[in-house]
């Protein structure tokens, strides 16, 4: 039987100071053009926590708005804040930077993160009030250090500064004197990914109502690599985050496939459960500091706020079929193969049309498609267009080409089978995954019967291959009926066996009697 999607969680972390100090667009600019007008103008375009909190796509990401509600709002979304927006919503939260810096320190088990004494004293109470921060987690928080120590390490010891509201409040020291894979920059990037993954896991445990000790296996699908000079991508983010989140009986591993990794990981998780290898598997991911303010130059040029000021994280729980939750149908897997080719038409055919054709289904049989879910507020001003709309247009065009709809029905198809994009441009985060939670709910509510989740990845960025990549799967309403039928048939089988045995025993008696005769 297919495994099911039992729960999801979605978190954002608002990190305005990390946009300035850690986003790769900004760190590159500081290296090649330190006195640039962009770097000077940038701080004026940074949003407050309240602005990020009341931003409609962010609220949609954590479940405070539905995709339908978002699509009814006028674009661009950033000038119109959501009234009464809350930090916590159905799927998770938007954490402020100061609390996250404490969480970052909590997630450090190698004495690499140091925060100022004042900062820890002032922020501790807020984090202690967090409904999901239990005593085990809070007990990991260390006391702060003197400000002189912080300045000294940042100025003289190659440490990465930690900032809040423009003030230096801590540092991450390098984990090795010469190893380029353990520099303070790399450790910072990795710990941020780990900490935001931990936050996602805590929300997932809460949303699922599970005892964390029931989880067997965790797959991390972020885009970072941790290891030392002898194994740059050694791993294991999954197990590291599981440790802090208290998943005592879990092991895990990392899967990497650029932006397609979440879809690869979900298919793997669903397969591990369906095969009976594990009963409960979690797919998790934290966010990426490098991508903060990635399109900042365009946003500043167009006099907008810099919208890429949040880290994204999510987690999903895959369980054995419970007869209720939506199934992940492993008979409907689309994949971009080595021989597929890289033209958009070849890619979308392999991911959407081929698996459906194989199962005797049509494109129009899928109620909702979720591909690259990037927020158009971010991408349009940077000249990259509306990415999800472009995907839905391609799927619609494919439906026209295969004779399922008329060309005049193209826009209608996009309206019915698509949705707006609300995900932060955090690489792996937008790729289909943001819709999992809503898809589960919509299927449970009976609003839709199924949804196709599509992961796509640009492998050329790693300079190992020019190939494109992608994998897709279909979530569908649980066919509980099948389960009952199977239950009945199993019962019937037992009855038949019993009858056969009785009859066999009877015939033995007859034969025995016969032989005696």
């Amino acid at each position: 039987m297919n495994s099911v999607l039992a729960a999801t969680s979605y978190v954002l972390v608002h990190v305005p100071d990390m946009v300035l100090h850690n986003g790769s667009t900004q760190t590159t600019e500081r290296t090649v053009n330190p006195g640039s007008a962009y770097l000077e103008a940038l701080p004026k375009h940074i949003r407050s926590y309240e602005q990020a909190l009341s931003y409609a796509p962010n609220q949609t990401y954590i479940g405070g708005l539905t995709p339908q509600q978002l699509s009814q709002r006028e674009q661009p979304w950033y000038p119109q804040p959501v009234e009464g927006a809350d930090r916590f919503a159905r799927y998770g939260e938007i954490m402020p930077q100061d609390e996250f810096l404490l969480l970052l320190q909590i997630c450090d088990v190698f004495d690499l993160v140091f925060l100022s004494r004042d900062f820890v004293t002032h922020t501790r109470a807020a984090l202690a009030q967090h409904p999901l921060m239990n005593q085990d987690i809070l007990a990991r928080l260390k006391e702060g250090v003197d400000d002189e120590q912080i300045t000294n390490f940042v100025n003289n010891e190659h440490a990465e500064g930690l900032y809040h509201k423009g003030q230096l409040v801590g540092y991450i020291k390098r984990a090795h004197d010469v190893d380029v894979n353990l520099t303070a920059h790399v450790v910072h990037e990795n710990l941020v990914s780990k900490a935001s993954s931990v936050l996602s896991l805590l929300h997932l445990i809460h949303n699922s109502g599970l005892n964390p000790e029931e989880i067997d296996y965790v797959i991390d699908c972020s885009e970072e690599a941790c290891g030392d000079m002898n194994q740059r991508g050694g791993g294991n983010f999954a197990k590291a985050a599981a440790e802090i989140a208290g998943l005592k009986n879990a092991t895990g591993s990392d899967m990497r496939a650029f932006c397609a990794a979440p879809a690869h990981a979900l298919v793997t998780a669903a397969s591990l459960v369906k095969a009976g290898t594990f009963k409960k598997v979690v797919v998790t991911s934290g966010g990426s500091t490098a991508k903060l303010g990635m399109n900042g130059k365009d946003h500043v040029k167009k006099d907008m706020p810099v919208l890429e000021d949040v880290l994204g994280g999510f987690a999903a729980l895959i369980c054995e079929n419970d007869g209720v939750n939506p199934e992940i149908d492993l008979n409907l897997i689309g994949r971009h193969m080595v021989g597929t080719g890289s033209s958009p038409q070849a890619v979308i055919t392999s991911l959407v049309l081929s698996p459906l054709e194989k199962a005797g289904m049509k494109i129009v049989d899928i109620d909702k498609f979720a591909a690259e879910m990037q927020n158009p507020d971010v991408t349009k001003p940077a000249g990259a267009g509306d990415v999800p709309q472009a995907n839905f247009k391609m799927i619609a065009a494919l439906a026209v080409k295969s004779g399922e709809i008329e060309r005049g029905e193209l826009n209608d198809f996009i309206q019915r089978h698509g949705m707006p994009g609300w995900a932060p441009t955090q690489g792996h985060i937008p790729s289909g995954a943001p819709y999992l939670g809503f898809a589960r709910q919509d299927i449970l509510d009976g609003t839709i019967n199924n949804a196709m989740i599509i992961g796509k990845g640009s492998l050329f960025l790693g300079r190992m291959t020019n190939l494109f990549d992608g994998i897709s799967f279909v979530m569908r309403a649980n066919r509980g009926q099948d389960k009952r039928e199977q239950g009945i048939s199993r019962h019937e089988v037992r009855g038949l066996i019993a009858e056969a045995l009785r009859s066999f025993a009877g015939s033995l008696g007859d034969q025995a009697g016969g032989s005696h005769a």
Partner: protein
Amino acid sequence: MDLENQKRVKELAEKYGPENIVVILGAAEGEAAGLAAETVTAGDPTFAGPLTGVQLGLSVYHVCEEAIKSEIPEDVYDEQISMMEMVLDVDDIVNEMTAIRDEHSKY
């Protein structure tokens, strides 16, 4: 245009001569196509890449423009490009490309 691609275009133009190079674009929008076309003719308008201030003046087309389309076997075009052609604003792309070529293309 991606900095690595700018570098490759520059190297190819130096190796084979700019008069022997045709750049074919697949951008999804007129504006993006125009920016890429400008980069390989008048130089990188974002002043970020190796083609900053380099006026290669290359011959540049979008794959959906008739000049290129007519060179491609019909069945190959149908299999690889026709779906995208359906979703692109081809007129807008052609206008952008023509304007850039008229102004900056030397070949």
